[in-house]
């Protein structure tokens, strides 16, 4: 068991001037489940591969425990990795696949068989130990890949989108299994995904990346309740947060004919006379008329218990798409005109130029 520390770790691919991963600082506590999330091309896989030793670190350091592993080859890092396509060895049986690392370490046959069997029991793989990967279903292959990692009893698990090749239902199931397994084994885990739902449901903490730059690290709740910039606000949460730029008025932000109330000190730190307001779909209240943002309903998605209303509004001559959560049984219909107002405590304000979250200048520390 160990901690993992990225200390200004940077990766610049040969032939490129822009770093794929730019001076990342992350600390992962012992036994913690950290999820790296971001859109494709954001550097999350590169970050994981740097930790695995499959990608060179051009600047900065990476530590596993107290050991600087920046220039240590992958096999000496005491890690195990689960790949997106599982990377099972096609010519070996499931048992051989799982025991391969132990065989190379020179662990004797009995102990190897014992450890493979234990892992197989944990993952319900016992009946398949003699099969080749070709004869397994996608979900079983995924479990074998997990098993191969578990058998090694490494200090850190690395997982690179291990669920993206599974169908939707199996993905949800396996998601829970992996998370509970990780908690049971207590092994520090770094998990890469592009799916923010996976990130929110599985991680102890989440690190959001964009263009190789770390945007925010925090618990799922932190990220959801106080995203540190417009990108994180828009990325975390589904459907995405409503975001648009609006004028700053005396006691908050202009919100149609009404006002989204924001602390005066907060908006005072904004550059210029405008700010970006952010409100989650569930924090919009719907009225048939009155003060607020007039919205024309385009479509309502019914999800049973509740539904999502998709509509559009006009803010300073710009068309803005609005999503609001509505009651599944009683909601406005397409074509209707309604008015939405924000729930006061749940208004997020961001600088319209830098995109950073606007916070009180003194009382709260800037950034996260």
């Amino acid at each position, binding site marked *: 068991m160990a901690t993992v520390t990225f200390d200004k770790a940077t990766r610049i691919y040969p032939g490129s001037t822009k770093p794929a991963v730019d001076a990342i600082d992350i600390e992962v506590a012992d036994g913690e489940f950290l999820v790296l999330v971001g859109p494709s091309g954001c550097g999350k896989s590169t970050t994981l591969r740097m930790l*695995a*030793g*499959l990608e060179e670190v051009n600047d900065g350091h990476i530590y596993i425990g107290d050991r600087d592993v920046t220039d240590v*080859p*992958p*096999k000496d*890092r005491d*890690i*195990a*990795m689960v*790949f*997106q*396509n*599982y*990377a*099972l*060895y*096609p*010519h070996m049986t499931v048992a051989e696949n799982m025991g*391969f*690392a132990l065989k*190379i*370490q020179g662990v004797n046959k009995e102990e190897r068989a014992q450890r493979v069997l234990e892992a197989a029991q944990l993952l319900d793989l016992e009946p398949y130990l003699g099969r080749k*990967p*070709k004869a397994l279903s996608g979900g079983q292959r995924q479990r074998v890949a997990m098993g*191969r990692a578990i058998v*090694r009893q490494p200090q850190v698990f690395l997982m690179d989108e291990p669920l993206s090749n599974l169908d939707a239902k199996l993905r949800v199931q396996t998601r829970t299994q992996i998370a509970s397994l990780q908690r049971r084994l207590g092994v520090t885990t770094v998990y890469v995904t592009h799916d923010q739902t996976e990130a929110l449901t599985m991680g102890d903490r989440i690190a959001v990346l964009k263009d190789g730059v770390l945007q925010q690290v925090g618990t799922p709740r932190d990220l959801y309740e106080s995203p540190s910039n417009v990108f994180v606000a828009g990325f975390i949460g589904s459907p995405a947060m409503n975001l648009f730029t609006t004028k700053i008025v005396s006691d908050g932000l202009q919100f149609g004919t009404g006002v989204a109330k924001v602390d005066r000190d907060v908006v005072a730190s904004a550059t210029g006379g405008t700010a970006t307001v952010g409100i989650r779909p569930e924090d919009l209240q719907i009225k048939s008329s009155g003060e607020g943002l007039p919205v024309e309903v385009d479509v309502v998605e019914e999800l049973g218990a509740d539904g999502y209303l998709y509509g559009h509004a006009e803010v300073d001559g710009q068309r803005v798409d609005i999503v609001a959560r509505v009651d599944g049984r009683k909601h406005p219909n397409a074509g209707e005109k309604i008015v939405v107002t924000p729930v006061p405590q749940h208004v997020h304000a961001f600088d319209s130029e830098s995109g950073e979250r606007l916070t009180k200048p003194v009382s709260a520390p800037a950034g996260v």
Partner: protein
Amino acid sequence: MTVLERAEARASRRLPWGNPLVYLVAVVVIVAMLAPVAYIVLGGFRTNSQITVDPSGFPDPWNVGNYLGVLGGPVFWREVLNSVIVAVATTFGVVALGLMASYVIARYTFRARGAMYALFAAGLMFPLTVAITPLYFVVKTIGLMNTLPGVILPQIAFQLPVTVIILVPFLRAIPDEIQEAAEIDGCSRLGFFWRMVIPLSRPGVITVGILAFVFSWNAYLLPLFILNNQDAFTLPLGVQAFSSQYSQDTAKVLAFTSLSMIPALVFFSLFERRIVGGLTGAVKG
């Protein structure tokens, strides 16, 4: 009409045994290909007088004397042994060297990689026939005239281009993730070669191995130049020598020829499926 009946009606509209034209073409091609072989094999069972009287007839009576004569003498077996030694050594050399060269070209990135591959590919356009005279002098200079290594070494060299060209795409098709997984599991690059590349490339290795074996078994020109001593003759040379020695005894020559063809034929027909598999199949993850 039930579904089953309908299905039957539909099926019966097509001829149950295919298009007769296809069969006609197939039969013509098969006859054209098999006739010479059949003529040689059957001719061995006839006597010279039978051949003279009716060149295209069947053996009547069947006569096994020619075959027994060839199999009973020491010449045939000595030449078989020589051919086997040359073919096996060539095959091993080609597979071992070809696999190593292909692994480097396929899976290491280095500056001269493209040039190396092009060099091997260029070897394909450089037939043995063209090089035979200089090759003769080289072999003579290093003192390998009349020895089997004098045939084996050049054969390995000339079979390498095909081997590398077949194996490189094969090894390239092994997913990078498998190499990375092996690396994390503790394999060095050589370990990866032994534990992953060799087992995973087995279909390709079998293909190039068989091609090398058959190439060597049928090689005529190079042994002709290098091997002047009767004791070192391989089978193709032996057939040639035998037929000039017994040019009057056609039946015996036919028997000798058909016996010398058999190993290559058997080999090819046994492994034909593997050869094709190795040419088309890649590694599946």
